[in-house]
């Protein structure tokens, strides 16, 4: 029988997902594996513990109030939030659609390579969660190569 492990049961419970939704099965700890895969790529954050570093909101709080605490929660709670956003916004799609429409006039459109980087990082997270470690390593190399090739983003932006 095939066993998929995406989140540890503790994380899944904290994320408020049912075992089925979270594909939780055996009590193996994938966080360690993620850490190993990411060891060579320090620019990628491990977001296993869903708590916002800016405002301290947890996913459990979000489930209770249906409200996030600050804009940074979107990134901090990305893993448990994403399936919910996907379900409420684009149930038919397999991945989150990218924002279309008005944007702040001061917000610069990202360059092609930054867009590519964002996509690769998202794919990497997906690969890790799907335990496709060969693919994850491959993506990590691509990200590293791309990072060497482009200017680091301006921190004032």
């Amino acid at each position: 029988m095939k066993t998929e492990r995406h989140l540890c049961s503790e994380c899944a419970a904290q994320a408020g997902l049912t075992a089925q939704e979270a594909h939780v099965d055996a009590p193996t700890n994938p966080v360690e594996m993620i850490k190993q895969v990411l060891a060579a790529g320090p620019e990628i954050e491990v977001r296993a513990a869903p708590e916002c570093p800016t405002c301290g909101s947890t996913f459990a709080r979000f489930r209770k109030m249906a409200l996030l605490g600050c804009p940074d929660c979107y990134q901090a709670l990305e893993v448990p939030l994403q399936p919910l956003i996907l379900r409420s916004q684009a149930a038919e799609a397999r991945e989150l659609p990218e924002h279309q429409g008005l944007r702040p006039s001061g917000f610069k459109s990202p360059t092609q390579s930054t867009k590519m980087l964002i996509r690769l990082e998202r794919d990497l997270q997906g690969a890790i969660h799907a335990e496709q470690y060969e693919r994850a390593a491959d993506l990590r190399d691509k990200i590293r190569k791309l990072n060497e090739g482009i200017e680091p983003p301006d921190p004032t932006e």
Partner: protein
Amino acid sequence: MILPFEQHEDDGLLDVVLISRARLARNISGEPFVNRANREEQIRIRDGIASALRGLPELGLHWFDPDTAPSAEGQVLLERHLVSPKFLEPGPHRLAGYREDARLSVMINEEDHLRIQGYGLAGGLSLAWANAKGCERLLDEHLNFAFNEQLGYLTACPTNVGTGIRLSLMLHLPGISLVGGMDRMQHAANDLNLEMRGTSGEGSEAIGHLHQISNRRTLGMDEEDLLHFLEDDFLSRVVREERRARDTLLNTRREFLDDRVQRALAMLRHARLLGEREALDLLSELRLGVAVGLLTGVPLETANQLMQRVRSGHLTRATGCTEEEPLRIQRADLVRRELGGGTPQSEST
């Protein structure tokens, strides 16, 4: 930028559509959302946004502070849909701005730091959107809104993330309802990822056959596409169905329809006490009678205005009454006066 407030709007859908609204949700970058902000932060957010708005006199806003204004005033703004029920709940340091012509309103520190609402009558969804967008673009030059590339505008509730837009239409659907088509309409709306609900928001009952339709999706579909989708794919279809249902009733069950309308008119013209709910239900029948041509003496506009003027907040403001029974008397008086009732002689006028 020229704001579209004075623009003429198409009232060709007035028989079915009462109000069109476009709401945009925005939050200030680097600040906690309202539900997580402490007192100082709430005040700082409110004052920052209010100061940007005060610097834009072309918006023509009047101000409403729920902490200091009399509660009847808030009730009137609520009945005009210029503020939400949530805005009037005791809570953080809130502030609203609105145009007296009800083309634009802003709410500060409701669920999000800023909610901008543009309005249009009848089929004026494009105008509603233009009003909201005009205000938003002006503010965009002064405020730094929380935004990211993937998710767009970041909102307190993820169901608004992306464009932060909610387009909504207040529809009068007595025809579809009387021919038993509401369930089908509900399913159709659901299939199109639209929310259909009663007049007072989520889960509320449809008083006077009034229904509110709004989009659910806010991510990955730009505002104009959504607008066209709502207008072309949904609204035109609903209007067609409602008119067809009214025609069917008129052609096949004329007495049934006429009886409802005439009874409603008689009640409205002769009642001495009228509750809010009862008045709205009767006015809905009256409006239907006017729209299908069974009643000729009453303009559709009068029926529409009455549906707002009989609301408790409006009546309290107009008469000073706050007690239930005097309000019922005042409501009946108002309706009799407007519909030429009271004595047999005046009924013919």
